[in-house]
């Protein structure tokens, strides 16, 4: 019951935060003059002759609060302007590029989070033994590898040396044609899931093959980070009084570590895991660029380079919403793990 109350309380808290995010982005938009802002709605050079008309249409000469009302109304109806980089409305561009990034995140994030937590607690439980030294060494190496270097090396070996074993991009040309043909229904835009829903094994295998390298690149760096964090958090937890109590109860080492220490050690790791997940969904520019994997990161980077303001602002809005939602999930998981969060620190 208390948990449900906490969820409701936390959901209501989202509203002011989202309002703040929208104000911030609208504030940035206000730095432009009405004419400049009107040009953001232009999808065709011929419209430039009618800028006054556009200003009037979107109320760009109205007082700020009226403009905010108009703008937020547009945003809610999905009108975020025109992305000239990919020649389509911003909202469509997002719908187009998000699945690719999401697919990457859905494979990389569980590997990073589960693997990092598992290796970190193993290392802490066997502190200063062989397992600990091995994982720590691996973590230092992984954490020190620059993404661009690791990505290029992987490509060199698995695409170059083994001639096309694990290729870049999302799909091979042949499969790409198949996916966009009428016989293949795109339910989600995530090729792996669509292939399973369509029962198409070649597409499934092909998309998995293309995912291997970018997922490995992302995993190596971030897993090292989570692992190191989990290890130190776990060591702290293992030194606590309740661990001595648990051992004095006669519990075996496995239960002590997994039940009593790990749950307490998870709390800081959860925060970082949330941020890592959000950061990957946000688009990982370097990884996506190296592997020519066209996701959100690639699009945002292109828009920024080409001064495509509606796209950049739309991306910023998406970014804000994404972080708000990830924080929400992290907070709810917190409350699930730690009763002190959901019940509040009550007076003794």
């Amino acid at each position: 019951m208390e948990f449900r109350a906490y969820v409701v309380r936390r959901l209501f808290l989202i509203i002011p935060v989202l309002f703040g995010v929208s104000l911030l982005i609208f504030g940035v938009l206000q730095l432009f003059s009405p004419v400049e802002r009107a040009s953001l709605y232009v999808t065709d050079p011929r419209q430039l002759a009618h800028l006054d008309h556009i200003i009037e249409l979107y109320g760009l000469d109205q007082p700020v609060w009226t403009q905010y009302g108009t703008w937020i109304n547009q945003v809610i109806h999905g009108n975020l302007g025109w992305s000239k980089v990919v020649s389509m409305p911003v909202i469509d561009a997002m719908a187009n590029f998000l699945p690719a990034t999401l697919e990457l995140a859905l494979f990389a994030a569980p590997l990073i989070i589960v693997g990092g937590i598992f290796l970190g607690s193993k290392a802490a439980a066997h502190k200063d033994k062989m397992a600990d030294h091995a994982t720590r060494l691996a973590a230092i190496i992984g954490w020190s590898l620059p993404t661009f270097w690791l990505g290029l090396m992987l490509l060199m070996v698995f695409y170059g040396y083994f001639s096309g074993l694990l290729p870049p991009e999302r799909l091979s040309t042949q499969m790409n044609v198949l996916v966009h043909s009428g016989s293949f229904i795109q339910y989600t835009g995530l090729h792996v899931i669509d292939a399973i829903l369509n029962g198409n094994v070649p597409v499934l295998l092909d998309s998995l093959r293309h995912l291997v390298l970018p997922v490995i690149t992302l995993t190596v760096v971030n897993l090292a980070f989570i692992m190191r964090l989990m290890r130190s958090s776990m060591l702290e937890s293992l030194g606590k009084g309740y661990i001595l109590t648990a051992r004095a109860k006669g519990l075996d080492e496995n239960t002590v570590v997994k039940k009593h220490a790990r749950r307490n050690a998870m709390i800081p790791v959860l925060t970082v895991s949330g941020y890592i997940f959000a950061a990957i969904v946000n688009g990982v520019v370097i990884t996506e660029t190296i592997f020519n994997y066209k996701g959100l990161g690639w699009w945002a980077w292109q828009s920024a380079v080409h001064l495509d303001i509606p796209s950049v602002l739309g991306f910023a809005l998406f970014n804000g919403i994404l972080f708000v939602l990830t924080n929400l999930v992290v907070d709810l998981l917190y409350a699930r793990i730690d009763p002190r969060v959901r019940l509040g620190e009550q007076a003794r």
Partner: protein
Amino acid sequence: MDELLRIRGLTVRFYTYDGVVQALENVDLDINQKETFGLVGETGCGKTLTALSILRLIPPPGRIECGSICFNIDDENEPVDLLTISEDGIRAIRGSKISMVFQEPSAALNPVYTIGDQISEVILLHRRQELGQRALEAVNALLAETPGFISTLARPIWLMERKLYQQVIQAPSSLWLTIISRIFLVKRLLWRLKDEAQKITISVLGEVEIPDPQRLTRQYPHQLSGGMEQRAVIAMALACSPKFLIADEPTTSLDVTIQAQILELLNRLKVEWESSILYITHDLGVAAEICDRVGVMYAGSLCEIAKVDDLYANPLHPYTKALLAAVPKLGEEPHSIGGSVPDPLEPPPGCRFHPRCSSAMEKCREQVPLMRELAPGHFVACYMY
């Protein structure tokens, strides 16, 4: 009087980067059945380490160098040496035969589990067969009922449960049972064990005089007061009716009024459950109130052991005398002991107390004095006698 625990020559060292810390040197100690033995001394003199050695829970880099700790599990069996039995053996003893109450109750309880979970965990671990028996009786009672609509539907499940509980009683560590208890949903068939453990938990919490134990089982440590937390910790220690309870300064962090209640509770439970207590404290007043015999510790070794009345009426060791003189009394200036506790990395040779002792002799600087029985039951390690 029968012996319960006999510690001989217990030596514990810590291997740190700065050198070897001689934490315990040749500790000899006997604890009898149904008695409360007090271990007093200053902070850092090795009281807690003695207790942790008994459970073999010395934290690294500490190591038990030599010695033996013989423990009488029951009257039929030979005493076992806790320092040499297997890891599984000592785990079976921890929490069931010997359990421990810690100084800081708020640190000793895991903040993310309810009090009920934490107490029933011990019961599920050490009293599984008894729980199986209780669960089996509950299922049998259900099966014996006259068949109705619900019982015809649930009958196959009850039969399965009965099979499992029989297994719990006869072969608690069988592979089959281990597999069942790991599988999602299927392990729910063993829910009655938890249910019975919960019932025992509630009755144990009642024993330690907690009002509304039912509600307490669902609460988390941070929702309780210090006194309630310590009662819960005591309940956890007593859940398997141990023969030997180690209480490591259980009242130090509590208010004086609550301290009195906890002492009273421990005294009552000791008589009712016929167990022995090793009571560790730095408070001589508390020791006088609760203990039958008292051992005084200084810098890792025992210097005097006596019946509590003897010790307070006729202290022999210079350290005991100084310690008693240091207790503040109304209207008097307390006498502090001159000098300071020796550096455990480089303890003084001979008697460790000699640099602070007013009646130190030449011999005290060279040789470690041995424990001698001066009067019946009154041991002291000092060259003055």
